[in-house]
């Protein structure tokens, strides 16, 4: 199959088979490897809470959901509060700004990456949420990104909005002063 790469030498090892010990296959060249293409397809449905989240995103709104016991707001919601195991039913509209809690600078290119290296991959605590969300940071040299930095969402143009998390292209500095590190300590 042309689309499948050759096995790299040295990574896979098949010990030699001493076929002389088995009369029926004496002198037969041992099979060292086989290729078995496999494909199974799935049609996903996101479920109730993620559907609510995705439909709101298409309207350029970020909706979290509140734990009925602790009051914590989760985004993206999965439908159940991960701390108490009860359904989340109250939707909470979140801001379009947030705070970088942690980040890393990606210097090595990889298949499928969406921006040029180096780029910054960060966890952003969206205003009003109690859990961080993964996002890219643009509009600032990677060396200047820091925990506590305030950022704002950069959306795709309105006519490209869809029920997709890719509506938020990335986050960029909002120009606000950094937050006190103590206020994000819980989310690290």
């Amino acid at each position, binding site marked *: 199959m042309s689309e499948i790469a050759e096995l790299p030498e040295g990574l896979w090892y098949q010990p030699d088979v001493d076929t002389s010990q088995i009369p029926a296959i004496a002198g037969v060249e041992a099979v060292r490897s086989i290729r*078995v293409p496999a494909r199974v397809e799935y049609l996903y449905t996101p479920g109730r809470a993620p559907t609510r989240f995705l439909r709101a995103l298409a309207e350029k709104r970020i909706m979290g959901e509140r734990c009925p016991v602790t009051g914590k707001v989760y985004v993206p919601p999965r439908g159940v509060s991960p701390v108490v195991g009860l359904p989340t039913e109250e939707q909470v509209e979140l801001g379009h700004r947030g705070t970088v809690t942690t980040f890393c600078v990606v210097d090595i290119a990889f298949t499928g990456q969406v921006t040029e290296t180096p780029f910054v991959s960060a966890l952003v605590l969206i205003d009003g949420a109690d859990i961080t969300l993964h996002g890219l940071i643009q509009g600032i040299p990677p060396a200047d990104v820091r925990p506590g930095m305030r950022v704002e969402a950069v959306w795709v143009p309105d006519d490209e909005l869809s029920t997709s998390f890719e509506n938020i292209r990335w986050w960029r500095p909002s120009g606000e002063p950094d937050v006190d590190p103590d206020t994000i300590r819980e989310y690290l």
Partner: protein
Amino acid sequence: MRDVAIVSFAQTVHSRRRQDVNEVELIQPVIQEAKERVGLDRHDIGFTCSGSSDYLAGQAFSFVMTLDAVGPWPPISESHVEMDGAWALYEAWVKIQTGAADTALVYGYGKSSPGDLPRVLSRQLDPYYFGPLWLDSVSVAALQARAMIDSGKLTQRQMAETAARSRAAAKANPFAQVKGDFDVEAILAEDCLADPLRRHDCPPVSDGGAAVVLAADDTARRLVERPAWIRGIDHRVDSHNLGARDLTRAPSAALAAHEAGVSGGKVDVAELHAPFTHQEAILRAEIPLDGAEVNPSGGALAANPMMAAGLIRLGEVARRIIDGSADRGVAHATAGHCLQQNLVAVLEGDG
């Protein structure tokens, strides 16, 4: 050995597609109901064990996503098996035997609807010889049914009778998916899906789940008036190589039944996890059930949520002991193709 009992059981209403919910939304109400039936909350559970399959979800570590439903914070003692929840129950039973827990929550779930189930299940075959043939699960079962018929152990009419009896029994099961009165002659007049299996010989494709609460000794007695004590439980495996087996037999089921002590008393009710009609005949020959009522729930022919259908057999027997309608019952769960792996438990009530 500690006395360990099933004290609570809950299941979903099984259906062909639950596209409205994701897995955690599917199983959360069932977990909550199983705990609330015996007045427990998450802090009262000593050990949690689940059964599910990434091949059904199409996602690696998919069970982690459903852990939200147990509220695992502060950190809990938890485990998972990539098998039917019946095997999760076995692990929980062992955990309680070690003294590390007095109670356990066990659940199993599967949404088969996102994928093509017979094709997904073909991935249970070995990757070198059978797997590349993409032999789907219905075709593999048909090989076994053909072996049963050719050996003279079973007729297609008897298979149709099992289908009709199971779906009729399921009329009393509010959680069943395929139920009703079916005519044996009409079934036999249908074309085969995979010769000699007709549609009626096959289980439905189901989305669903189930949960059970286990408790030991006085804890069990405190939670429920009549605990369903697990008097014996054992699981065994036959060869993975279909060509190395006599497909008309399931020696691992017979051995598990022996080790679980099935023949130690009268069996009032048995729930056998036989997804295909001919498999019930194999299990009846391997497990000494005498005059027991078999599959009053309709069995896997009435609802077959993958990774839960075996656990449901345990729950269905336990339910009948807890409510006093049975004194001693046998529950069986299977996994793999052609009844390759089998678990048997004997459940009893007091007095």
